[in-house]
């Protein structure tokens, strides 16, 4: 097990800047997720750690050893590819045994380890099959087995669940997490699915267009997103954003937008106003309170637009003037489209971002 450090790593393909100045430290035994939309440089980052790509700039360290120029075979890495990349001409057994054969491990020992891993992943009944005879979920386990059998120092997983159906995905999520905790292998897990990242990783590195946005624990990303992008990417349904400005009237501060005027406490108002007056207010769907009757202080008028019942949850879409907001609520609330409601934004749950730099103000 090792600590992995990316020190100012960049990778350019001609004019395409796939990864730019990436700094990342993955602790020994840690489970880190690389999260970002497709094309943001996640796979490229993994392939650099694996040694397939050489960084255009920067260094990669395993513990304190600079491995930037080491070929993949000298890095002791296990990797699961998005396509699984099982060798089609080999049986499952030979696929899993392949890394050990290359290491010239004695035959009986190979046999023992392959069977051990196969049992761990519950594929011991498939060892004689060819990859083409396996289902997606089985192929995925074989790929995982092949990556684990050599007892790698670092495990790299490139969207390993993206080709599975939803049910299997949820099951494998838990299984991979348990496996990682059990084996304590330093793991870097690439995904574009924030739920996967949030539910599995110790820490998440959010990337966008080749640049690291924020690297923190899941709760921190959720509670204190560093910019609009992270705020919008984490959470489902995503955070609501309302563009507006901070106004001061008679020593009181307001957030104003079309059809909406929200009084802010003096402390918050002063703080935000001191940074910027053109801002974006952000609030998560689960933090908005819906009031159907009675008078409330500092509430916002809204009209119910559409209701999406999800069984356990209820997603209420409301319109404030022309802005559509999503609210996550529990079922039981009787609402009709067109109905007038009032919304309460608890102040401690409100985020403010600078409209131009997109950075979080609070």
């Amino acid at each position: 097990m090792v600590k992995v450090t990316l020190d100012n790593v960049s990778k350019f393909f001609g004019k395409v800047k796939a990864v730019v100045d990436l700094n990342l430290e993955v602790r020994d035994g840690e489970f880190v997720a690389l999260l970002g939309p497709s094309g943001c440089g996640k796979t490229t980052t993994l392939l650099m750690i694996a040694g397939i790509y050489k960084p255009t700039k920067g260094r990669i360290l395993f513990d304190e050893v600079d491995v930037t120029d080491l070929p993949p075979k000298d890095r002791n890495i296990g990797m699961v590819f998005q396509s699984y990349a099982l060798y089609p001409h080999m049986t499952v057994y030979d696929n899993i045994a392949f890394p050990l054969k290359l290491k010239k491990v004695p035959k009986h020992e190979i046999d023992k380890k392959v069977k051990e891993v196969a049992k761990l992943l519950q594929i011991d009944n498939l060892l004689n099959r060819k990859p083409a005879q396996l289902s997606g979920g089985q192929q995925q386990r074989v790929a995982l087995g092949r990556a684990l059998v050599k007892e790698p120092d670092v495990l790299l997983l490139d969207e390993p669940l993206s080709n599975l159906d939803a049910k299997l995905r949820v099951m494998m999520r838990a299984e991979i997490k348990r496996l990682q905790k059990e084996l304590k292998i330093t793991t870097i897990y690439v995904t574009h699915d924030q739920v996967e990242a949030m539910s599995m990783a110790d820490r998440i590195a959010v990337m966008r267009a080749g640049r690291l946005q924020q690297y923190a624990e899941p709760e921190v990303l959720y509670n204190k997103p560093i910019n609009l992008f992270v705020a919008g990417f984490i959470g489902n349904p995503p955070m609501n954003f309302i563009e507006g400005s901070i106004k001061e009237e008679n020593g009181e501060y307001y957030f104003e937008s079309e059809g909406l005027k929200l009084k802010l406490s003096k402390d918050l108002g002063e703080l935000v106003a001191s940074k910027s007056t053109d801002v974006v207010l952000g609030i998560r769907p689960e933090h908005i309170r819906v009031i159907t009757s009675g008078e409330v202080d500092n509430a916002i008028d809204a009209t119910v637009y559409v209701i999406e019942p999800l069984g356990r949850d209820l997603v209420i879409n409301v319109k404030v003037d022309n802005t559509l907001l999503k609210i996550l609520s529990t079922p039981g609330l009787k609402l009709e489209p067109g109905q007038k409601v009032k919304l309460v934004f608890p102040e401690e749950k409100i985020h403010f971002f600078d409209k131009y730099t997109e950075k979080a103000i609070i």
Partner: protein
Amino acid sequence: MSKLPIPTYRITPWLFLTPLFIMIALAWIGPLFLTVYLGFTDLQLKNFIAFIKDFFTPQVHFTLDNFRRIFLAQDPYIPEVARITMIYVGSVLAINAFFALVLSIAIAYFVKSELISMSLRVSWLLPRITPGIVYALMWNWFVSRDGMFNLLLRLAGIPESWLPSNWLLDKPYSQLLMIIVNGYIGASFGMIVYTAAIKSIPPDLINAALVDGASEFQVARRIIIPLLKWPIMFVTAWQTLSLMASYDVILMVWGAAQGASPSEVLGITKVAGVTVWSLYAYTQAFSQYQYGYAAAISLVLVAIGLGLIVFYFKVFGFRRLMEPSRVEV
């Protein structure tokens, strides 16, 4: 569709195909039957005119003599021709199927620069793009008495006495040249098939092998070559058959490019030891005017070829052979 009442819909495609069928009948089926027939006759120069005038002339006799000459070694040169043919097909096949594979892997996998890889591929394609007779003439110039090859050897300090008096006529150099000249032109076929197949291997597979600890060489041996199983079989089968029947390059280098008349070709190729089976059939017909015998000789080749086709189809399966660049992924 088949219930459409207008018959022209069905006739039109056949109408368009008719010229092709006429061509096939004239150029393939007709000669095929003629060859089979002639192989059992004593047609030669002296009864040829009579045969032209009257297909059923009594001057042409039905006989098995041709096959006696071939199989009972009544023609003393036949064993030599068989030996040369085996050397020719075996060696050139090794170049066209196996060496082409090594080259393709080198060019498409080991050479990472696209530009270099492209230029190497083009350099191997050149002999195929060049008109055959020009290719033959260039070899003749290259290995002639005061040609480039001797010039280079002299420059390298090889004493004059070591050089053969004629590269094209002195065995074993002449036979080596036969192999090289044909291999250089033939390798491109396999290379095109192999390169396409290698390029169609998903990069992830190769990356996975590298991460699993394979060296570049091990990737070639344990991933790329096994994945090229079908292309290799296809090229091997195809090339065996076409090599057995091909003598055009030999005829051009040892015949036309030398300025030899058809009647001189057999003499030259005999001295050089490059008379392959199909060329022998050609010379029997067009320089010895032994039409019946020539037909019989080529019939033997057709029989062997048919046998090989049946063998290949049995072993590899017909459908698989028809999918040249198939990679098992």
